[in-house]
C-alpha cells in the first residue's frame, strides 16, 4: 500500500506547479466574478428584468378599467397593433421627427463648427453660450417654448412673426405648425451637442493635408468635399447614431409643449404608448406599443452601426 501512496504523492507533487497557476487563475476568476456580481445583479434587476417584464406584460390583456376581462392573450395585442391606424401614424410621426431633427442637427452643427473654427477671438465664449440649451431639462425647455416663445399674440416668436409680416400664427394649435414647432424645439436644444463634437473633431484634423491641398490649388469647396467630410465621417456617423436613438425615444419636451396635440398631430410612438398605458390604463396594449418602439429602435441603430463599419 505504502508505495502506491508514495507514488500518488509524487505524482501530485509533479502536477502541482503546472496546476497551481490554473487553480490560481480559476480562483482569480471566481473572485472577480464575486466582485462583479453585485453590480451585475443590480444591472439585471434594473434594466433586463423590467425589459423582460415589459415583454411578458405585452402578452396579457391588462385593462384596469375592466379587471374581469384580464388574462393571457399571447400575440393578440400585436395583432391589434398591426391594424391600429393610430399606431402606424404615430410610428410615421416618430420617423419624420427623428429624421428631420437629426439631419437639421448635423447640418446646422457642422456649419456652425466650420464657422467657429475660423473665429480668431471669442471662440471660448461662443462654445460656452452654445452649450447652455443642452444642459437644460427638456421639460423646462418645453415649458419655456410653450409659454414664452410660441403662445399666439403673447409669445416672442409670434411677435417676431407679426413684425416680419407673416402675421400671428397658432403655432401649437395648427397640426402642421405644431409638428414644425416641436422639431424646431428639439433641434434648438440639441444642435449644440453635434456642434461641440464636430468642432472637437475638426480641431484634431491634420493641418498638413490642407496645406498640400492649397499647394495643389484645391478650392475651398473641394477641400471641404474631399478632405474635411471624409475625415469627419466617423464623428458624423457617431453623432447621427447617438442623436437618432435619443430622438426616437424623445418624450419630455413634446409632452410639455403639445402633449401629442392638437388632436394626434404630434403624437409620436412614445407618447402614444404612454397614453395607452397610463391615461387609458390599458397596460397590456401599452406594453406591446413600447416593445414595438424598442424593436424599431434596435433595427434602426443596427442599420446605422452596420453603416459605420461598412468603410
Amino acid at each position, binding site marked *: 500500500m505504502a508505495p502506491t501512496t508514495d507514488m500518488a504523492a509524487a505524482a501530485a507533487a509533479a502536477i502541482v506547479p503546472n496546476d497551481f497557476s490554473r487553480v490560481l487563475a480559476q480562483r482569480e476568476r471566481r473572485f472577480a466574478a464575486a466582485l462583479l456580481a453585485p453590480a451585475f445583479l443590480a444591472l439585471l434587476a434594473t434594466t433586463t428584468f423590467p425589459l423582460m417584464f415589459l415583454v411578458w406584460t405585452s402578452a396579457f390583456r391588462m385593462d384596469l378599467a375592466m379587471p374581469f*376581462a384580464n388574462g393571457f392573450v399571447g400575440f393578440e395585442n400585436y395583432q391589434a397593433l398591426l391594424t391600429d391606424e*393610430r399606431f402606424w401614424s404615430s410610428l410615421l410621426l416618430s420617423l419624420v421627427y427623428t429624421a428631420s431633427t437629426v439631419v437639421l442637427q448635423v447640418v446646422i452643427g457642422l456649419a456652425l463648427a466650420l464657422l467657429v473654427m475660423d473665429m480668431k477671438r471669442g471662440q471660448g465664449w461662443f462654445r460656452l453660450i452654445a452649450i447652455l440649451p443642452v444642459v437644460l431639462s427638456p421639460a423646462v425647455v418645453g415649458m419655456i417654448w410653450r409659454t414664452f416663445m410660441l403662445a*399666439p*399674440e*403673447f409669445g416672442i416668436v409670434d411677435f417676431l412673426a407679426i413684425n416680419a409680416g407673416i402675421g400671428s400664427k397658432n403655432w401649437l*394649435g395648427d397640426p402642421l405648425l405644431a409638428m414644425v414647432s416641436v422639431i424646431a424645439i428639439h433641434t434648438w436644444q440639441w444642435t449644440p451637442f453635434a456642434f461641440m463634437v464636430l468642432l472637437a473633431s475638426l480641431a484634431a484634423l491634420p493641418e498638413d493635408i490642407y496645406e498640400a491641398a492649397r499647394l495643389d490649388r484645391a478650392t475651398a469647396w473641394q477641400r471641404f468635399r474631399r478632405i474635411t467630410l471624409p475625415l469627419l465621417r466617423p464623428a458624423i456617423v457617431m453623432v447621427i447614431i447617438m442623436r437618432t436613438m435619443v430622438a426616437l425615444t424623445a418624450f419630455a419636451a413634446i409632452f410639455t409643449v403639445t402633449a401629442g*396635440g392638437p388632436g*394626434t398631430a404630434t403624437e409620436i410612438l412614445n407618447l402614444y404608448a404612454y397614453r395607452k398605458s397610463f391615461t387609458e390604463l390599458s397596460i397590456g396594449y401599452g406594453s406591446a406599443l413600447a416593445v414595438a418602439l424598442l424593436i424599431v429602435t434596435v433595427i434602426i441603430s443596427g442599420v446605422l452601426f452596420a453603416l459605420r463599419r461598412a468603410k
Partner: protein
Amino acid sequence: MKLHRPTRRTFLKTGTAAATLMGFGPALLRQAAAQEADLAPYKSAKIDWQQATGETITVAVIPASYFENLITLAPQFKTLTGIDVRFEKIPPAQIRQKSVIDLTSKTGTYATHAADPMYYALYAANKWVEPLDTYLKDPKLTDPAWFNFDDIIPAWRSADSVGGKLYGVPYDGEVTIQVYRKDLYDAKGLKPANTLEAYMANAAALNSPNDRVWGAALRGVAGAGQNMYIYPSIFREFGGEWLKGGKLTVNGPEAEAALAWYIDLMRKYAPTAAANWNWPDIADAFSQGTVASYIDAHSSASVVNNPEKSKVIGKVAYARWPKGPSGKRVTSIWNWGFPINSALPEKRKKATWLFIQWAASAETQARTAHRFAGPAKRSGVNRSSIWRDPEYVKLMNGFGDNFVEATMEALQSDTDVDWRPRVPQWPAIGDTMATAIQSALSGQATIKVALDDAQRRIEPMMRG
C-alpha cells in the same frame, strides 16, 4: 486681544439650532393654535374620537387653497383623535395616475386621496375602495345626527356613488356658470345669455380683437378634465345621450351639432391661443380684461377677483349656463371627495374614516371657509346649510352680482348625473373624446370624421 472667530463646530451648532427653530417654529405655532381652538363642537358628536389613536395616515391632495386651509387645521384633528395625518401635495395633472398606481399595487400608501368623481366607477369595479355605507351606519363610527350627511350637496353625493352605493365623501366642489363683464354688457345693452344661441350672439357683439377684447373663451386644451369638462354640458344641452340604448355613443347628429357650436364659438370669438388654454389661462385673460365672458367653474371667481392681479374687480357678474336646443341647462358635477383605500388594515380604515368625517363635517367646512383666519376663503363648501348662512353668503357675494344665486340654482336645478358617461372605462373615453374635440377644433379632422373615429376607438374599449 482675542477675536471671536466662528469655528466649523460652532458654525454647525448655531446652524443646526437655527434650522431646528425654523423647522419647528411653525409647528409650535400650529400646536398653540390647536390648543387654543375649541374642540367642543366636535366632542358633542356621540362617538369616541380617540378610538384609533396612535395611527398615522397619509392623505394625497392637490395644491389648492381649499386644501391648504384644511392642512392648517390638521393639528386640531391630531388633538381631537390622536391620529397623525401626513399630507402629500400632488398637482391635479398627476394625482389620478399616482393614486391609481397606488391602488393597483395595493400598498396602501395613501389612506385616502382627493378623488376625481369620474373615477369611482373604475375604483368600484376593481374593489380598490371601501363602500362607505357601512361606516356611515355604524353608530360607533358615525353620529348621524351630528354628521348630518344629508346636508351635503345632493348632486355631489350622487356623483361620488356608483350603483346607489357611496364610495367617497365630497369635500369641496364646483359647478360651471357664465362669468361676464357687466360693464361691457351694459354698454351694449346686452343681457346674460339665456340660450346658447344668445351666448353666441353676445360674443359676436362684444368681439373686437383690434381693441384686444375677445367675445368669449372656453377650455380648449385637450384632456378628460379640460375640454372634456366643458363639452359634455354642450352635448347634453343639444340632447345628446352618452348611453343611448345601453350602448356608449359619442357620435351622431346631436354630438355633431354640439361640437359645431363649440368650434364656431372658439374659432370666431375666442383668442387663437385659447385652443391651448385651461381654466387658469382663461381666468387670467379675463382678469386682464381681454375676454368679455366665459363659462367655467364658479370657483374661478376667486382668480378674477384677486386684488393683486385683476383689473376687472367690481365689473364681474354671473349667470347660469345658457339653455340648449333641448331646453335643458346642464352644469358640471365636480367635487374632490375622499374615499377609503381598501388595502389598509382595519384600524387604519377607521382612522381614515374619522379623518373624512372630520374634514367633511359642517364645523370643519365652516372653519376652512368664512371662519378661516387666513386670506383665502373657500367657494366650494360641501354643505347646503352653509350656503344659506348669511355670513357666508355675504362673503361670497363679494365676488360679484348674482354669484350665490347662480351657483345655488345651478347646483339645485342644472346638475345632471349623466353629464359625463360614468363607466369604469372613463379615463380612456375621456382622453379619446378630448383628442377628438381638439383635432376637430384644430382642423386636423372634420367634426364628423373626428367623432366617428372616436366612436370607433371607444367601441372595443367597452367590450368585455
